[in-house]
């Protein structure tokens, strides 16, 4: 049914916690408990180490690639409470920005849709979610949602950039009024939806369908229907929540999704 078409030996000295392909599937970023983030060029079934990024002081939990129109940018988050944004400039990777505003391990990072510019959501064990927006000239604007999840936030995922009522044609030439939304999952067993209104982030909905910690969440891409699909999974078993008429299979085609599977 499936075959291994390539194996990349990352040479990480400790447990790997995340691996992500870039937008086109040509580069692979990995992160590990050995505190490093590595980037490989994996075109044509090969593996060439492009960068070995050191800057974290604890296990690195997740990495996320930004949209290529902003250049080659990668975000990483770690147990050391830091979020680091790396950028490739003139062929070499360097720290572009370091955020230390959390009081505890940062567990998840996710870039927003490119229509919103360069904006990163970070979920932390201190229960807060922070949103870092690049405003130009090495400046980042920070907005924090404190106590988003009581014991800690484990995962964040952005909704696609769609305009409310987008099924109706927008008059051309007008800049669309996007609504920024994302979903988060936490140790309080809840999945929460967040919406930005008048520059402030507010809790839009709360979904109580899990009996244990929510480990990961994913928001399916939009195909123009008036409903949305979110998938979430929990420590105990795998669940899917749909509040739409989507069947599971077509959503899975496109979901960027991490599943907590135990191999038997």
């Amino acid at each position: 049914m499936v075959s291994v078409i390539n194996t990349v030996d990352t040479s990480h000295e400790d447990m790997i916690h995340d691996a992500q392909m870039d937008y086109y599937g040509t580069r692979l970023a990995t992160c590990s408990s050995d505190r490093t983030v590595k980037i490989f060029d994996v075109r044509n079934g090969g593996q060439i180490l492009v960068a070995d990024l050191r800057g974290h002081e604890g296990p690195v939990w997740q990495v996320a690639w930004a949209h290529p129109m902003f250049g080659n940018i990668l975000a990483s988050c770690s147990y050391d409470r830091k979020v680091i944004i790396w950028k490739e400039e003139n062929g070499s990777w360097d720290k572009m920005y370091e955020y230390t505003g959390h009081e505890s391990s940062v567990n998840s990072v996710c870039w927003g849709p490119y229509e919103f510019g360069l904006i990163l959501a970070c979920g932390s064990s201190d229960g807060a979610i922070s949103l870092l927006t690049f405003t130009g000239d090495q400046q980042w604007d920070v907005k924090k949602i404190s106590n988003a999840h009581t014991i800690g936030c484990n995962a964040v995922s952005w909704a696609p950039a769609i305009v409310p009522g987008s099924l109706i044609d927008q008059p051309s030439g007008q800049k669309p009024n996007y609504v920024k939304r994302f979903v988060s999952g936490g140790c309080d067993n809840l999945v929460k939806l967040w919406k930005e209104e008048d520059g402030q982030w507010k809790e839009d909905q709360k979904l109580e369908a899990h009996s244990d910690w929510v480990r990961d969440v994913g928001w399916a891409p939009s195909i123009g229907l008036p409903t949305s699909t979110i998938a979430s999974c929990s420590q105990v078993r795998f669940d899917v929540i749909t509040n739409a008429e989507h069947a599971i299979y077509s959503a899975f085609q496109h979901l960027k999704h991490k599943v907590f599977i135990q191999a038997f």
Partner: protein
Amino acid sequence: MEEVDVEPTITNIPAISDGKHMGFAWGPGDILVYETLYKASGASGSGCSFIHEIRKDEDIYSPILRKLFNESHHIFVGLQTIREELPSKSKKPQFVSISKNYRSVIRACMEELQQVAGNTVSILLAIELIWNLCEVLFIDAAPAGSLLLHLLDWVRLHKADVDERAREVLQSESPAEHHDYWDVVVSYVLQGRLEEVRQMLVKQGTLQPAARSMYKQMDTLLSKMPFYNPGGTQTLTEFDVKWRHWHEEVDRCLQDNSFASNRHLEVICKILLGDEDTLLDHKELLGTWYHFLVTRLLFCHPTVKPTELHYYAQSCMTMFLDSRSVSEPLDNILLAAFEFDIHQVIKECSIALNNWWFVAHLTDLLDHCKLLQSHNLHFGSNLREFLLLEYASGLFTHHSLWQLAVDYFDHCPEFGRVYLELQIERVPLETERKALKVLRICEQRQMSEQVRSICKIMAMRALRNNRLGSALSWSIRAKDAAFATLISERFLQDYCAKGTFSDLDLIDNLGPAMLLSDRLTFLGKYREFHKLYGEKRFREAAKLLLSLMTAKIAPQSFWMTLLTDALPLLEQKEVIFTADQTYELMFCLEELTSSLNITASSTDRPMQEEDVEVTKVELLRLALARNLAQAIVKEGTVET
């Protein structure tokens, strides 16, 4: 919460050992897995450093099948353009011919694959078998009479080994004594190829002169078997009567023990009567239950109606497959076809095959024949579109086949466009040529968001590689004012540093694109100034230079450079700037110096730099004053 159609299948990942936690991420077209450990607090311990890229065993990666995808794409597009207004009746032959086209493509592929071993050949065989049956039952929709003839053709096409064996027998020294002789004869009978049977029996007949009359009798029976002629004048009822008479005659021969002394001829006689037990005795020669079905119908009920098929199909399958063998997916699919349950056929094929090619194309064709009920699925799209979308999405992961997928999306009216928008952004833009190809596709379909996104990506990439000209033209195409401004600044910086412009062609031919950003406009106009100066059109150059400052097109940071550019014009023997223009220049200079506060001493600037600036200003003031004097004199002089 909705129910799922079938339980999600469990996929075993070969590379991960038992008992470990598995990390997982989607890549475009494949998945990444790695061993890891999830624990509430920071997990550590020895880990495995391997990351595995896993892909479904899909056939799109096979080079031979690529031909299948390419050619079927061609047929697909042709099918979509068949005009809707024509009544269905006249379109049926067209649809049948298209169906045959698809099948010939499959067969061509099979022939090529014969050399290469593997599963694919048998899968293609099965696909062609199913498609052929669907063509007979659904598209051609043969009525009783013709139906059996088509089914007979179908079986004969898919049991080609008979001819091979026959050839072997006939080419031997004494065919009638060949050990396969009777097997071949019986196989021909089972397929209703009675002419061939008669030819073969002649050889046996000559060997046994004593039994000549028996062979003659058999030959007569065989020659008299009626076959329905759809194009003829005989009605189905008339044919049925004739056939019954013949059947009775054969039965009489059997009852009379006419063939009792020859075991083989008696078997043939029983087969002609459609005797079940005799037929089942020859399971090996029949090979499959559907061959058994068709043979049985041929010799028991040649006027079978389409609606009666499924009774016979079900019973034949049960009889043929004894308790030991289990029905395979192929059997279920064929059975569903005999039951005219199109949706079941499609559903079973979707589950059994690991590639959407077959179900997508077949369903599309059936949809055009108006055979699919509008079966609204949960995701708001119809069955045809769903399958086409799945197939095309799969193609998109391939480095060259993705272009075929575009046409498929184009013909999915509900979701095709949005799927295309999502997928086309992920095509890697390794070369500028490829980027332009992708761009053309987006522009043709007015996908302005994607156009902008791709142009921005290419502009950023060009800028990183210091190809300013390319970056500028991409940002103009993206209508990205901010980026254009950034790049224009870089151009101007380069000019200040090196004294020349790079990418002159581009800047000279900006045209209306110049208006995209102020800085870009300035860049264009400044270059124009240099051109005018080079062509010695000094008056025009002077006018332009001045307007750059007075119309505030030039950023103030650049004014010093502009004024310095004015120096050679001021120093010319001939007076170029008019008095008024000179006043304006002076005004600009004053504005600049007062805002920059050059003349005032500032402690934080290095002495040398300040000196240079002060000297420049003094030079300018002198030149301006001299020019003013000359201009006033010139303008005040009356030419006599």
